[in-house]
């Protein structure tokens, strides 16, 4: 592997743990920001998750100048334009995105407009368009899964053209990600499970796909260890603050791993299934993960076998012969899925979702072949291969 080369980049300040939210005023002041705007969605507000953020700022004499709480699940160019308008009108000077993937992506896109100017976010779509740092931008994730707080990507729907616009630039990365266990404490069981399995998939694919590298490997394995040690505890005891924090950190670590080494076929199939059958992303990840690992098995036997240590611990790892570890890793993931099914009926097959028709599989396969992440899958996937994986995942 003398030709191996890699890049690794993550300039996001991670502020994590007990009373992390209370660090926001200090961090904003450090960037000379005095008039922050919060970008969030109705669900977050209804769950009361804004209260501790606002209280933390007000107690330090920092006023939240404006709150936009109407980000839809699939954010659009007009939403971004509207929020940018409010930001300018209220003379804000920083953005705090509070929420899951959509609120965070919206915050990134709004930051482009308010920093670069104009009303047409589509102009900045693509890679490497931005050449300057943007306004101060903080992210407070309220799910433990997407890892968007440490990725340099945003996706916004152009509703007029009916296409999804991608934005990629390292300037989209927030200045800080604030990981506070209070923000994920009230996540319902099935979302906790699905988002944790999204993080698990990020870490597993980062560790087994083509762009793996020593730095992202370290983040990936640490994330897998945290998830396998904490997920079932949290499922059984949702108010387990320690466990919640472990999952939230694991999600950020898995995000750092995959944003530097990419994901593979699980995500290609998941993106296609999400678009066609409207299934949540984390659910698709959990569903496809073992089937894709089986498909990739002979190309990833060695790294996959290493993951057994982080999934099952040193005793199981050392008791398993090296030649059987890759299979044992897949079994461990299946076992975890069975446990999650028992606790919250997180589907393990397409049939169990009740939302996929068998005659949709071909369409899913075709769409998956056009997904960017398929490029980094360790095995070259043909249409027939994709169909075969889907048939195995059917029931």
């Amino acid at each position, binding site marked *: 592997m003398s*030709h191996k080369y890699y890049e690794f980049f993550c300039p996001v300040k991670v502020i994590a743990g007990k009373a992390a939210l209370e660090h926001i005023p200090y961090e904003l002041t450090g960037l000379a920001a005095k008039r922050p705007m919060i970008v969030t969605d109705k669900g977050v507000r209804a769950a009361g998750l804004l209260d501790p953020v606002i209280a933390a700022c007000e107690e330090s004499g920092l006023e939240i100048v404006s709150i936009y709480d109407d980000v839809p699940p699939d954010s659009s160019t007009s939403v971004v334009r509207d929020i940018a308008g409010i930001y300018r009108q209220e003379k804000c000077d920083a953005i705090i995105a509070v929420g899951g993937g959509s609120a965070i992506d919206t915050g990134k896109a709004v930051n482009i407009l308010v920093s670069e100017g104009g009303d047409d976010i589509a102009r900045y779509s693509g890679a490497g368009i931005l050449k300057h740092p943007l306004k101060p931008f903080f992210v407070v994730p309220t799910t433990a899964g997407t890892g968007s707080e440490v990725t340099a990507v945003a996706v916004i729907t152009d509703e007029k053209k009916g296409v999804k616009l991608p934005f990629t630039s390292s300037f989209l990365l927030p200045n800080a990600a604030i990981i506070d266990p209070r923000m994920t404490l009230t996540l319902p069981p099935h979302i906790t499970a699905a988002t944790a399995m999204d993080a698990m998939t990020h870490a597993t694919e980062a560790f087994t796909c083509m762009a793996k590298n020593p730095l992202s490997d370290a983040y990936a394995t640490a994330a897998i260890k945290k998830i396998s040690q904490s997920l079932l505890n949290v499922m059984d005891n949702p108010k387990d603050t320690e466990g919640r924090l472990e999952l939230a950190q694991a999600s950020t670590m898995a995000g750092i791993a995959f944003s530097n080494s990419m994901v593979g076929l699980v995500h290609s199939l998941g993106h296609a299934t999400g678009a066609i059958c409207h299934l949540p992303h984390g659910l698709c990840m959990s569903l496809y993960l073992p089937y894709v690992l089986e498909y990739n098995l002979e190309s990833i036997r060695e790294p996959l076998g290493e993951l057994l240590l982080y999934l099952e611990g040193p005793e199981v790892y050392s008791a398993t012969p090296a030649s059987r570890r890759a299979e044992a890793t897949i079994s461990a993931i299946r076992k975890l899925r069975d446990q999650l099914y028992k606790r919250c009926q997180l589907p393990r097959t397409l049939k169990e979702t009740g939302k996929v028709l068998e005659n949709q599989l071909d369409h899913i396969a075709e769409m998956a072949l056009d997904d960017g992440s398929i490029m*980094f899958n360790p095995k*070259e996937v043909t249409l027939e291969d994709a169909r075969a994986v889907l048939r195995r995942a059917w029931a």
Partner: protein
Amino acid sequence: MLLKRIQPMVFQARRLYVDIMFQVMGRALQAVSEVDETVQNEARALPQGLLFEMMVMPEGPRLIVEHIGDGYFHYHGDSAPRPVDLSIQFKHIAHAFLVLSFQEKTSEAFANDRMLVDGDVSYAVRMTRVLNRLETFILPKLIAERAVKEYPASLHLPEKLISAARIYLKVATNFVETARP
């Protein structure tokens, strides 16, 4: 002293090689699209008139092909009749050389941040598969295995390509041999 005199020659040779390989690939893309069903099926999903470019930053060698419809490619040489729709850009000529001398797979070069995509990623994914397929045609199996993720088990060389392929692979093997440290 010696290094100073040899370096420019190495640079020049590398540039020349990349230039030649782009021409070889451009012609081969067109030829393969005329005979190979797999390539046609991949290409058919691209819009008609799509201009695809592969180039070396900042102003280095480039190849431009157009999808003229129904899975057929037309090679335009190194100049485009209008702005290109999809561009795969190597960050440096050294990286283009690694890929074009089949020391690094196209997909690996993406994974290793050697090149960038400007344009629709789903088209780039298709073109990468077309390039992989192409590499299996114009190279002997041994080298192709290194250049693509997987060598297709059921690859029948179309008669029309075999003679042309020999010429290409002669160029390629020579270069690989001399290029390896």
